[in-house]
């Protein structure tokens, strides 16, 4: 089939430890190989940066609450819609892009794999329909477990094996990828208008605490040996002073050991940590606690995190943390959508304007960047915006600019309306660390792939891995103005996905052949769990058990990751 050789670029590959050497990358039949024949098509990458395609570990890009965001914000599409072309469908939506735009914009930035951060199991079919309509990028989705009635009942009784059997059943049924936990316990409390704001607040009726839910799910995750760790959005998101809840939650991982055949060395992924690193106790004395949080993360090697950087845009917040979204609409009075999902979870959507003229937003912006810059192990910290919550993913090049240029950060701080107060409440102004390209490659490619248990497929340029490759118009041997960094990473010179060129000079040239990633887990037969499932469908669900499963015709080019957890 097709052979390519990407010649002479500056290669950054943490998997092989290549830190900017000039090297060639050879591609054959969709994989990276050691050598190709002289007939291979030559792509000249001289003077350019070459990395593996990036891996998005957490974004809200496919599913019912994303679509609420789209449908309820016509103004998000006004005047910025990109017309269709010969190779691409029309593409619109600034903070909540359509599925076509999502695929195209990720690809243009050199991203080739993305994980949908939260899939409500009852709506799984919707998530897969949107995944099908997202071109080019491989995708998987994380079903949510942290407010699930089955999970809470099993874990309350300490029944890890039963919880694990249920998790396996649900991943198979929804064609999901990992164990996602959002505001554990608090979102079930929200079905009565309540919340759990610390890890010891019991859930109404179910009488289990967030600490017990997170601990139990980590144990079940390792019992099964899933490719990714438990992935958690902690309680008390967005509240001043919440860093103590964050540290309490992270400490739960201390006793858990990773157990899996995928090379994953961590047991907890703490997402959009920026929103969870707040000090003070009100918006007046609100301050950064990034140092306290990152001191712990740096020491605790079995944790990974992603940053959740604020981009200072008008955006749309959307999360399964239902009570948080209600709280947010009470603060900014903007339109609030909410859906409580029977037996499983909830979601909320509220627009938000992160203004550089507002002190709180300036501090939030700083915290996200501090987290990235304070990290000591760049394989355990990943760059995100919790799209679209802290900002659209299309701002990643801007985030990269801020992380690679202290000058760019200083320019921003100088332009802020409240820079003096902001500097008092944060650490960023005193930080001159600038991320290197190698560290960037760790934080956006090799690190996330490893955390997902996919390090033999994505995130690197070693022979045998998928030929997902990004070439940027960025010469590491030259000086760059900060805006040139942003420009180079916004529109890749060349992107290849599974050996197919998809972007050339920032333009889409193919819709590719995207795949859907999901985890198929074998466990011992468990008649009790199956009986409980049948029972709840009969009595409490509003659909039948036979109609719940996502049939295989909903999956585009499935790529199944097999897990054998049979004892």
């Amino acid at each position, binding site marked *: 089939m097709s052979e390519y050789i990407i010649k002479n670029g500056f290669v950054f590959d943490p998997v092989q430890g290549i830190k900017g050497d000039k090297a060639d990358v050879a591609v054959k039949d969709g994989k990276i190989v050691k050598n190709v024949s002289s007939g291979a098509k030559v792509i000249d990458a001289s003077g350019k940066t070459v990395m593996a395609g990036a891996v998005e570990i957490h974004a809200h890009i496919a599913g019912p609450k994303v679509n609420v965001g789209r449908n309820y914000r*016509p*103004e998000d599409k*006004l005047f910025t819609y990109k017309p269709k072309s010969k190779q691409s469908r029309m593409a619109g939506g600034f903070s909540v892009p359509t599925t076509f735009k999502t695929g195209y914009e990720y690809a243009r930035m050199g991203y080739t794999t993305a994980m949908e951060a939260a899939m409500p199991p009852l709506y799984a079919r919707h998530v897969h329909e949107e995944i099908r309509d997202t071109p080019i990028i491989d995708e998987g989705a994380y079903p949510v477990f942290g407010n699930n009635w089955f999970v809470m009942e099993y874990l309350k009784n300490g029944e890890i094996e039963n919880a694990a059997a249920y998790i396996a059943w649900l991943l198979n049924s929804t064609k999901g990828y990992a164990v996602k936990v959002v505001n554990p316990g608090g979102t079930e409390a929200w079905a009565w208008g309540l919340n759990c704001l610390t890890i010891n607040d019991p859930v109404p009726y179910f009488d289990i605490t967030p600490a017990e839910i997170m601990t139990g799910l980590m144990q079940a995750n390792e019992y099964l040996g899933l490719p990714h760790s438990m992935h958690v959005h902690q309680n008390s998101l967005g509240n001043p002073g919440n860093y103590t809840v964050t540290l309490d939650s992270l400490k739960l991982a201390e006793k858990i050991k990773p157990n899996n055949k995928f090379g994953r060395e961590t047991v907890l992924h703490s997402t959009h940590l920026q929103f969870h690193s707040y000090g003070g106790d009100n918006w007046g004395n609100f301050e950064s606690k990034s140092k306290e949080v990152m001191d712990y993360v740096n020491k605790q090697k079995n944790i990974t995190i992603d940053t959740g950087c604020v981009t200072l845009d008008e955006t749309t917040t959307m999360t399964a943390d239902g009570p948080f979204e209600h709280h947010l609409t009470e603060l900014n*009075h903007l339109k609030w959508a909410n859906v409580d999902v029977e037996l499983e979870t909830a979601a909320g959507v509220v627009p938000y304007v992160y203004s550089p003229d507002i002190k709180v937003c300036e501090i939030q912006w700083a915290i996200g960047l501090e987290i990235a810059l304070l990290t000591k192990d760049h394989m355990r910290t990943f760059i995100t915006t919790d799209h679209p919550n802290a900002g659209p993913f299309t701002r990643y090049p801007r985030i990269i600019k801020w992380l690679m240029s202290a000058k760019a950060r200083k320019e921003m701080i100088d332009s802020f309306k409240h820079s003096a107060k902001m500097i008092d409440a944060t650490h960023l102004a005193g930080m001159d660390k600038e991320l290197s390209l190698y560290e960037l490659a760790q934080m956006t490619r090799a690190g996330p792939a490893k955390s997902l248990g996919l390090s033999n497929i994505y995130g690197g340029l070693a022979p045998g891995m998928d030929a997902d490759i990004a070439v940027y118009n960025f010469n590491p041997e030259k000086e760059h103005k900060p805006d040139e960094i942003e420009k180079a990473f916004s529109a890749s010179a060349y992107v290849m996905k599974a050996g197919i060129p998809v972007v050339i000079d920032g333009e889409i040239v193919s819709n590719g052949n995207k795949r859907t990633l999901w985890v198929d887990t074998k466990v011992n037969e468990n008649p009790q769990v199956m009986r409980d499932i049948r029972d709840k469908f009969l009595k409490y669900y509003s659909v039948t058990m036979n109609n719940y499963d996502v049939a295989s015709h909903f999956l585009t080019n499935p790529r199944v990751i097999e897990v054998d957890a049979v004892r």
Partner: protein
Amino acid sequence: MLSGEVREMETVTLTLKNQPVLFLEADNISPDVFAGKKAADIAALHAYEGREQITLGKYFEVAGNAGATAADTKIVVKGDLTRVKYIGMKMSAGEVVVENSTDMYTGAWMQGGKLLVKGSTTAFTGIGMKGGELVIEGDAGNYLGAAYRGDWRGMQGGMIRVKGSAGSDTGYFMNSGTIIVEGNTDVHVGTHMVGGTIIIKGNVPSKVGGQMVEGTIYVFGAIDVMMPGFKYIKDEELEVDGYTGPFALFHGDLGERHPKRKGQIVYGKLYQKI
């Protein structure tokens, strides 16, 4: 330029020579787009009929050149324009005079300058307006000076005056600016208003100030059914757009949230002429 000096404007005259079969989208008819262009360039600008992209020159005779900037440009549009949409969209300076009635989106998202229609318009006149002066000598349709769908930021500045009547949803989600309708309107005046001034000199059947947070509405004529969330406060003697006399003040909408300033709750104000 010294103050008091009259600005020398260049005038471009567009005369519609044939009717479109469907409707013509003429969002390029704006001093900002014409600025710096000669007649031939203007005639070559795009217009749209359905999915067909055509030129302005296909439908309009173009006479005269534009000024160097929008502020120096005056556009006069003649002919039966009832099937032409978007005249004056987003204009930031200069002048547009529409000699007859025209269709939707007249002066939509206007930012400045002057737009005069010597006839009537239909829906979405002046939506999302940020500044400038928009005068309709005939009637206007629904959604006069309203917000675009979903946007909580409606009209943010400028002045709209309609000498005839207007339709429903006048000033929807208004933030700031002034709307004056000298005739009647249909239902829903100032729904979701958070600021600005609306003056209706004729009658409004009902739904005046529904869900209003802040701002001021004056109604000179009859309101058949008042919103239940409006409570009579007192009579006041006022001067409103040239008329001086007593008005009854109502505070509302009591079903809506209201901000507090200096310890006082700030209500929306509805004044009805006594």
